[in-house]
């Protein structure tokens, strides 16, 4: 290499040095350490002692680990596709040119700004079985009739009835769906990303489809959605990473209860690390979490070849 090339490398590394140091100290070393801890018995009070794959072995037989994992996957299955569809639907609605569009956009975006703790407080109050707004609204006649109707159908197929007032956060059957429902309130962020994507759908395409007699659904299905698919894909990846790590909201609102119905993966990880001081065990969990996220992301990437359409530029 010539002298100028060396000089360039020196300059480049100098500018990148904050990140290089940070990468070493706050990413690389922690990741390697965590891999090491995961094969150790480490209680924080004593130095880590190598125990091989014992932590991973123990996890396989740990019913709470299995419960927390199934809870997390169940939550992801409920909240993730619904969340993506709700936000896409809202974005499509907000893209229709109507009077007061900015106002509607603002109202739907604002909840996504609410700090996690504050929205947890607010929704605990809204979900309150006796005094909460949601059960108050459900006590109105049309909703009472609706619930009675649902119960009649449930009775026909011998399923358990909906008991009112619903204990949203105190009934094991309702707590997880309640948290998923609440997550829709904060979709504003995703909606904005979709809206930005919708601006890039070429209007010539939509217009010519329209002139050719394509109705709203066909334009949506054959023009808008394919053009939007890279953005949907981006939001899907983000949602996978975020949903599988769900922690703060259930930690604050239910503490994992009732009957561990909302006890999620990261909560058990946190409890192992900082409550039971089983740092090695927690690290093994963290690695399993990382592998699950990587696997799901890889599947998403692999499937994207079939449904994501990149416009030739």
């Amino acid at each position: 290499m010539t002298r100028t090339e060396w000089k360039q490398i020196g300059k480049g590394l100098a500018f990148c040095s904050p990140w290089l140091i940070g990468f070493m100290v706050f990413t690389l070393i922690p990741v390697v350490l965590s891999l090491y801890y995961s094969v150790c018995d480490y209680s924080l009070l004593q130095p880590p002692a190598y125990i091989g794959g014992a932590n991973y072995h123990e996890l396989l037989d740990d019913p709470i680990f299995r419960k927390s994992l199934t809870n997390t996957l169940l939550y992801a299955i409920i909240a993730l596709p619904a969340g993506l569809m709700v936000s896409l639907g809202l974005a499509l609605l907000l893209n229709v040119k109507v009077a007061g569009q900015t106002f509607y956009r603002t109202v739907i975006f604002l909840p996504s700004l609410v700090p996690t703790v504050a929205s947890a407080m607010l929704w605990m109050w809204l979900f309150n079985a006796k005094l909460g707004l949601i059960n108050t609204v459900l006590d109105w006649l049309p909703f009472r009739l609706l619930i009675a109707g649902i119960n009649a159908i449930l009775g026909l197929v011998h399923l358990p009835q909906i008991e009112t007032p619903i204990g949203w956060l105190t009934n094991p059957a309702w707590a997880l769906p309640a948290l998923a429902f609440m997550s829709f309130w904060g979709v504003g962020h995703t909606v904005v990303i979709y809206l930005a994507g919708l601006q890039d759908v070429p209007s010539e395409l939509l217009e010519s489809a329209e002139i050719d007699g394509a109705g709203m659904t066909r334009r949506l299905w054959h023009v808008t959605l394919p053009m939007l698919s890279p953005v949907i894909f981006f939001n899907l990846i983000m949602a996978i990473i975020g949903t599988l790590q769900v922690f703060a909201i259930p930690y604050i609102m239910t503490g994992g209860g009732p009957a561990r119905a909302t006890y999620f993966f990261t909560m058990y990880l946190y409890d192992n690390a900082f409550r039971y001081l089983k740092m090695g065990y927690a690290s093994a969990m963290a690695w399993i979490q990382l592998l699950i996220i990587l696997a799901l992301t890889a599947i998403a990437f692999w499937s994207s070849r079939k449904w994501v359409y990149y416009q030739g530029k």
Partner: protein
Amino acid sequence: MSTLETEIQNRVSNSPTISATARPVAKRKHLERWVATIALLLICIGFALPFVWMLSTSLKTLDKTMEVPPHFWPSPMVPGNYWKVINHPKLDFPLLARNTLIIAVLSVLGTVISSSLVAYGFAKVRFKGSGVLFVMMLATMMIPFPVMMVSLFSIFRWLGDHTPVQFLGTLRPLWLPTWFGSAFNIFLLRQFFMTIPDELSEAALMDGCSEWGIFQRIILPLSKPALSVVALFTFMGAWNDFLGPLVYIQHPQQYTLALGLQTFQSQHGGTEWNLLMAASVLVILPVIILFFLAQKTFIQGIATTGLKG
């Protein structure tokens, strides 16, 4: 869509063959808009109701929050709840706000300074190996925080034992890492710096300007919109963070708003809902004000992260 409409109108008047299909299109547009408006109105009521309910509860007396069915309008109205929250002995609001602000301001400064430096290195300095480093940096974004949580905790403990600087039990673990660049923000800024033409910096180089001079006098002033996006998101992140403080903070003296509010709620069993709602309003308010002050930055920031990601 108005241009589309005029175009359709033109075609309708110009060619009699198209008018047969175009008129129902215009009519359908009209219907579409009405349906959308009604749907949006209903949805917006749903989205706004929690806010309204929070405000209403925060202004009620404790007895009135226990009413079944609850009344919408607080009477008597007690704005004093807010004062009570700010001065509550169990919820040292000024202290919590101070701690949160310290973390937020130091994080914003650290992120903006360090991330812009690194982004400049990636965007404007051509050096061997920068491509590999950049890909490595992007890859780190995929690593979930829980993977590093345990070892970061023990690293900070080790640093406290082996250096004169304490970390655990102080606010430092929450803002110090931000001074070493954050992958997401470096990426964001790098993409922006790339759009600034190289001719500018080359001309400056000819005139004897140093690399540092180009960064400071040309790139930074031209990048104010991107820098404010980074600053805003970092501030929001610090203000919202719950898991970080939960892991690193040990004494109530260092509690942030998020942690303090959660502790207050869990210790009181969630009975004083009027005070809890007033406290929540106070935590939300700065964020909402910030949004209305910097609405454009917010929306553009989110939009670009989604499209360039």
